[in-house]
């Protein structure tokens, strides 16, 4: 089981939940793919139609920015915590 932590602006796409439990493990891609099945609108806020992370969305796996640890292929173990955070952007 993996816990996905959601930022405030995205909780409305998950029924108001601040965290979701996902059974998939292995890679970040697998976690996000499973999350997309139950929450497709949440998923497309995080990744575009190519499946790539949106430029100003950051995802941390156990505190490590996935962009520095393998991107969507970042290993995710059972019990891991995946945190989605909007980056500092906008005017």
């Amino acid at each position, binding site marked *: 089981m993996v816990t996905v932590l959601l930022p405030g602006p995205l909780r409305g796409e998950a029924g108001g939940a601040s965290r979701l439990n996902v059974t998939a493990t292995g890679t970040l891609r697998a976690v996000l793919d499973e999350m997309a099945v139950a929450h497709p*609108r949440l998923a497309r*806020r995080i990744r575009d*139609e*190519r499946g790539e992370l949106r430029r100003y969305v950051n995802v941390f796996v156990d505190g490590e920015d996935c962009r520095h640890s393998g991107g969507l292929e970042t290993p995710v173990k059972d019990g891991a915590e995946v945190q989605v955070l909007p980056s500092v952007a*906008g005017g």
Partner: protein
Amino acid sequence: MATLLAIGTAKGLFLATSTDDRRSWEITGPHFPMTGVYAVAVDTRRSTPRLLAGMTSSHFGPSVATSDDLGASWDEPDQAPVAFPADTGVSLGRVWQLMPAGPDEPDVIWAGTEPSALFKSTDGGRSFELVRSLWDHPHRPQWEAGFGGQAVHTVLPHPRDPARLLVAMSTGGVYRSEDAGASWAPGNTGIRAYFMPDEWPEFGQCVHKVARDAGNPERLYAQNHHGVYRSDDDGRTWSSIADGLPSDFGFPMVAHPGRGGVVWTFPLVADGERFPTDHRCRVFRSTDAGGKWEPLSVGLPEGPFYPAVLRDAMCADDATPGGVYFGTRSGSVFASRDEGDSWSTVAAHLPDVLCVRAAEV
């Protein structure tokens, strides 16, 4: 009967409603706060008008939502309404244009996007499919991006012939279809591209906006990146109608939806000086298809005025007499209920106005 004015801004959608023949307005919003609303449409072909909004979050990407209760509630599909197929290898930047088709196709909505592409919906704007013929056009690798991005920003269905369709993009220019979008040909003859070595290319022009005449659907008006033009042959060839304007630079071009030959624009000094001409807030109107132009400023700010008006930030409604509206990059929105003769302020201090659309609802 009420008039609805939808105002897309850099930080959300505002909806202004008037129930006293456009004398006063009540405003709600922002809907979709902190998203750039580059495209909005009021589809009055249905028994219940449908609003469509194309919004883009700088964090969470683009989408399209619809409302069948005049904006009281919005519905956004689970699956992305506009998305590029996997084999294209690209992702949607934003929706620049949402355009209901003609009366013969009540469920068809066209969407122009960044990167430059055309999408078609046959379910009233709930889902869209890429128009492959334009995406696969051999010219596409040579279409360039302007400062605002590479986008199809104008889609003009023909009011009497569903087979005919015109799009315009920056840069790339005008493309026309006479077979319901199965094939496309450039329609830029006569439009100058001063920024290219060959100033009269087949395509590559930076057309800012195109509008279709109400009385004669073969007649079109174009505001170019320097150059104001008219076509009398459905976009095949163009000739200048810039004489009489203080500048041939600007972004919007709006045709009266019911009266032929009437068109409005908002000139800026030049590409390198994007201020209103003479630093004054003035709309210019022609009532003879671009032969002569007159400045309109009664009721508009009188002092020095510097904000620009973007390509979709001017529109007309379908009332009689016609209403005209425009919004500025400084967040002001102005309305005329007498075809531009006089103006009043609808809103001020909004975020940058990106687009406006108005209709009787």
